[in-house]
C-alpha cells in the first residue's frame, strides 16, 4: 500500500495484533488485578491499591488447593471480582463458628473466606459455599508496590476443616 495512509495502517495493525495477543494472554494465562477493599487485610500484607498477578492456567482443570488466595466473581454482582482465601474444596466438612454448625461443601462448590471476621469480610460465612465455576484465577505474586513484591503463600487456618 502506497501513500500517506501506509504508516497509519501499519500502526493500526500492530495495535490490533497487540490487543489480540494481550487479551488472549490475560484470558488464558495470567493477568494483573488491582486489589480494593479491606477483606484481605492484614494477615498476608495485601493492601488496597496493590497489584497482584493472577494465574489463570488453574481454570483448565480447576485444580485449586486449600489455602490458595483466589479471585472469583462475586455471587451477588457478577461484574465485581473478589479476592479471598479458598479454605475448603468439594466434599470437605467445615466448621462455621458464627453459625455454630458443621457443613459439608457440596459437589462443585468451595468455601472462601477473607482474613477478617465475618462482620467485615463479606465471604462464605455470609453467603455460603460458592460454585467453582465463579473462579477467575489464583493470586501468585504481588507485583506493585515495590516494597511488597513477592510470592503470596498458601496458608490454612487451623482446625476449621476436615477433608474427605
Amino acid at each position: 500500500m502506497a501513500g500517506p495512509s501506509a504508516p497509519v495502517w501499519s500502526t493500526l495493525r500492530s495495535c490490533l495484533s497487540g490487543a489480540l495477543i494481550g487479551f488472549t494472554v490475560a484470558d488464558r494465562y495470567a493477568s494483573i488485578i488491582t486489589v480494593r477493599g479491606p477483606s484481605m487485610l492484614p494477615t498476608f500484607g495485601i493492601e488496597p491499591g496493590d497489584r497482584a498477578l493472577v494465574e489463570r492456567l488453574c481454570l483448565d482443570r480447576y485444580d485449586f488447593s486449600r489455602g490458595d488466595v483466589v479471585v472469583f466473581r462475586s455471587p451477588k454482582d457478577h461484574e465485581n471480582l473478589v479476592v479471598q482465601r479458598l479454605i475448603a474444596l468439594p466434599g470437605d466438612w467445615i466448621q462455621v463458628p458464627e453459625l455454630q454448625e458443621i457443613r459439608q461443601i457440596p459437589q462443585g462448590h468451595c468455601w472462601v473466606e477473607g482474613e477478617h471476621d465475618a462482620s467485615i469480610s463479606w465471604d462464605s460465612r455470609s453467603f455460603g459455599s460458592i460454585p467453582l465455576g465463579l473462579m477467575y484465577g489464583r493470586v501468585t505474586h504481588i507485583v506493585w508496590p515495590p516494597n511488597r513484591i513477592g510470592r503470596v503463600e498458601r496458608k490454612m487456618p487451623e482446625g476449621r476443616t476436615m477433608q474427605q
Partner: protein
Amino acid sequence: MSGFFRRLAGTPWREIAGEAGSLAFLVAQVFCGVHVVNAHVCSFALVKGVSMLPALNLAGDVVAVDRVSARFGRVGTGDVVLLISPENPRKMVAKRVLGMEGDAVTYLVDPGNSESSKTVVVPEGHVWVQGDNIYASIDSRQFGPVPYGLITGKIFCRVIPFFINFVYSLV
C-alpha cells in the same frame, strides 16, 4: 565431506529463521483472534441431551452463542443460556432462564407424580434456570438459583439442526 559443510554454510539460515519467525507470529495472531472472538463476541457450541426438548434436539444441535449480552447483563427471562454447571465446573449446560433477581418463581416439585408446587424468590445476583423438559432436567429445582456469573453466553440461533447433521454423517 568438506563439500557438505560448505553447502551447510551456504544455506541462508538467517532468512529461513526470519520466515519461520514471521509465520509463527502469524499463526499466533490467528489463534489469538479466534480466541478473542470465541470468548467475547460469538461462538458455536454443540448442545445435546434431553433436558431442553423440544426446543433443542436430543442428539445434538450446533447453536450460535452470543457472548456480549451475557457480559453486559442483558440476559432476561425466557432466554436460553449456556452456563457452567454448579455441580461440576468443567461441564457446560444449556437451560432457559425463568426468573431474574427479585422475581418469584413457582415450580412443580415433582412433575410426574404430584401437583404440589413451591414458590421461591430469586436472590440478588442470581437467576433461576430450568430445562424445557421438566420431566428430565437437572436444573434450579435441584441445585437452586445460580449466580449470574456462571452464565457464559446466550443461545440465540440454531445453526445446524440435527437432521442435517444426520444426513452429513451418512455421506
